[in-house]
């Protein structure tokens, strides 16, 4: 199967996602230039981290107008699995594929560190291989990861079970201390209503080899592989 990794100008975790998919998981991976409209036969799309267009207006605000986003939207509409990591998540929010917005971290600083997230939902293509309530140790690296949505939207996300990852401590408890950026409802990752589009602020692609401090992120990629292989998701580019 093929992971398609969209490269926006200013993407900088594109090579990391490629390495994880291609060299750690041994799957095919293709870079997809943002000016292209063809998804190169990808089974899974990744919008990688970085600072697309320098994030000068708002994080992700310009990237959502890139030509490739038409194809991404259509792919998602057909039920194709899409994973937005960090800046990719921010682009998904700006594109309206997932509700809500990002504020600056409550520290008002960029933060790069390992955190813990609890897997809240297993019925998405990026968590299917996880255990219920499994705690993953993943790095974050962002200045604007403080998720915000009005209370009624948060309530709807809860009801629809769209909260996929929550920041917790190592024991899996949601505490204010374990919330690195002040996100509402300790939200670290969400899915859309159809559950095929997932966005998260932590970087699973940076945690696929123990040499880098954690291999927990592999579960996210393995979930995608299993989901495709089991035929649960058949949309193709």
């Amino acid at each position, binding site marked *: 199967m093929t992971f398609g990794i969209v490269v926006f*100008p*200013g993407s*900088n*975790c594109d*090579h*990391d996602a490629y*390495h*994880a998919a291609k*060299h750690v998981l041994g799957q095919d991976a293709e870079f997809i230039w943002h*000016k292209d409209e063809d998804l190169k036969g990808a089974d899974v799309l990744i919008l990688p*981290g*970085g*600072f697309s*267009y*320098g*994030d*000068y207006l708002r994080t992700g605000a310009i990237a959502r107008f890139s030509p490739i986003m038409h194809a991404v939207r259509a792919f998602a509409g057909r039920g194709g699995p899409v994973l937005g990591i960090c800046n990719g998540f921010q682009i998904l929010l700006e594109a309206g594929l997932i509700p809500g917005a990002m504020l600056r971290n*409550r*520290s*008002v*600083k*960029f*933060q*790069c*560190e390992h955190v813990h997230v609890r897997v809240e939902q297993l019925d998405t293509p990026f968590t299917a291989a996880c255990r219920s309530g499994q705690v993953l140790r993943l*790095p974050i*690296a962002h*200045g604007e990861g403080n998720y915000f949505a009005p209370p009624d939207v948060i309530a709807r996300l809860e009801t629809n079970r769209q909260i996929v990852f929550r920041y917790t401590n190592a024991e899996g408890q949601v505490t204010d201390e374990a919330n690195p950026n*002040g996100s509402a409802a300790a939200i670290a990752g969400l899915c859309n209503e159809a559950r095929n589009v997932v966005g998260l602020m932590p*970087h699973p*692609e*940076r945690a*696929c*080899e123990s*040499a*880098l*401090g954690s291999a927990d992120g592999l579960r996210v990629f393995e979930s995608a592989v299993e989901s495709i292989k089991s035929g649960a998701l058949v949309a193709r580019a």
Partner: protein
Amino acid sequence: MIDSKVLERHGLKPDEYDRIVAFMGREPNLTELGIFSVMWSEHCSYKSSRVHLKTLPTGGPQVLQGPGENAGAVDIGDGLAAVFKIESHNHPSFIEPYQGAATGVGGIIRDIFTMGARPIALLNSLRFGSLDDAGTRRILEGVVAGIAGYGNSIGIPTVGGEIAFEPCYAGNPLVNVFCLGIAKATDIIKGVASGVGNAVYYVGAKTGRDGIHGATMASAEFDDKSAEKRPAVQVGDPFMEKLLLEACLEVMKTDALIGIQDMGAAGLTCSTTEMGSRGGAGVEIDVSLVPQRETGMTPYEIMLSESQERMLLVVKRGREAEVERIFDKWDLHASHIGEVTADGMLRVKERGAVVAEIPNGALTDEAPLYHRPMATPEYLADVRKLDLDELAAATPETGTSAGGTLLALLGSPAIGSKRWVYRQYDHMVRTNTVNLPGMGAGVVRIKETGRALAMSVDGNGRYCYLDPRHGAMLAVAEAARNVACAGAKPLAATNCLNFGNPERPAIMWQLAQAIEGIGEACRALDTPITGGNVSLYNETDGRAIYPTPVIGIVGVLEHADRVVTRRFQAADDVIVLLGEGRGELGGSEYLKMVHGIVRGVPPALDLAAERALQTLLVELAAERLMRSAHDCSDGGLAVTLAECCFDTDGIGADVAIDRLAVARAESVNRAAALFGESASRVVVSAAPEAVSEVVRRASAAGVPSRIIGRTGGRSLRIAVGGDIAVDVTVADAERAWADAVQRYFAKRVA
């Protein structure tokens, strides 16, 4: 038109002007004068330091590119080269901390990718005044945010560095940034212009009026009017640089490129001149073809602008379209602004009319070269006197009171955790960082080969203040030792020399002494200098900083998975001290923090012993005989042992060391044993079954070794001469250490 006021504004001395007139055979016009002023500035010409820099060792079989290009390069095996350099951005960072630091990062990154290398790691070495001062906190916050803002955005991890605090840096903070990239050894690209008729291209950001005379600003002292120099600080655009980086690396894959250089200090002037000079050619450009951000810019302004994120390329004639296509892909516009000529002149035109015409050689090779007078500073004789017996009254005698001193040292910003800083840097992007910041040297793996590169930047201004030659040697030794502690063989060095006003004989003496020390240490440790940078005039109101040479060392680790960190790995491991403590307290952190004095002579250094120690460390790591390694530096053995216990979930240690007779009072002897900073010492831990082999190898290598204790328990206990002197829980010690810098900012963070 050109009078003494004009000359002064350009930082040119009357005799330098006479030299210009002699070269030109006529009076220069203002544009030409501006070009001379930046090229002959200290920053670009190294006119005070060059005669001394020439004595540095720069060669060796590992060196692929020595000084003189945009960066140095060393062979790291498998046909790959590590391309690296350190550079200062001190003056701009004082005037505008965020942009000053950010553009410093941008500049050094350009130097690396200009060589055809993909930048993969950043380090920085920073100096500030005391954190008790609100102004210093503001500068620190700005500098850190600027480094983060640029490095994070462009996607190059900041994997390590060092920070020190001394009052002498309050008005002259130091921001030294190191960048390392990887290239195929055969694909290194140089900053040359050659081949008559080849096209000269300008790519990147448009030229504005920002940064005009940045190079001359960096070559002058500060006074109370320095705030007025703000327009000379440039504004960084990391997104533009990311596009330039990717596009240039793509262009370099074609063979359409002859040479490339970034426009850093002195902008278009320096890049055209240096490229022409290296290629033995001339360069002719028309400034009206240069993309401009503002209207009505004069040739003078265009030539001297230091707008960021701009590159100059020389492209083979007939291959222009190919190159333009690649820049178009990245939404960059490449402008054809001139040609390479045969006459060795820098010729600047404006809409076809010549506005400046200067022989390249006059700007580069013929720039002034000064043998400035030197004199031993007057302060030296006094500060080198240290009577340890006088310390007795202020040093507690009994029990575990040294534990309190240890906690105080660990909780000081100098020694405490810098996590508050490096947490703001993306240190993991590119997924190569196998040694996270705070663990010792920065280590990045090379995915393609299984090897890894370790790198460290170090300097100790206090030691250099007390003895610049010796202090500089200690800086080289420490940087190389840190690399060796990670298990990497030190290969080569880069240096950043931060000093005061070289026109003062005492400062010039410091500079010359430090360069001598660097040379001697680099020769002995076989780490030639491949490049670097000199930052002079670091003075405010006539007060100079400590002489502060900062050394960056790069080493190679044959197996990335054998990297070693400072952390103890398990309980019941055996702790071995390699090297010998002599209780040297001169210039130590202990003396400064506990007794408030900066005195004495820095620790002795035997370079042969140092080299033997480093060779041993590389061997122990390669054969997996040691599980952790941490060098003794600021705060001595006690601080080193404590740091070995941190980030381990609380593994403690029981240690016994000898008393040292350095003074009459036992309390002073005890402090010397615990906190003395004798060089060439490393604390390693080994599994019980491996210890005899470690000791045997040490003995074979001629390195003194001694088993000093075991890991385990939840406390760090150190007995000196049989009496317990330190008994603190790891949790308490770690809390003090973790909070050391953060507590100064805690109130201001939600």
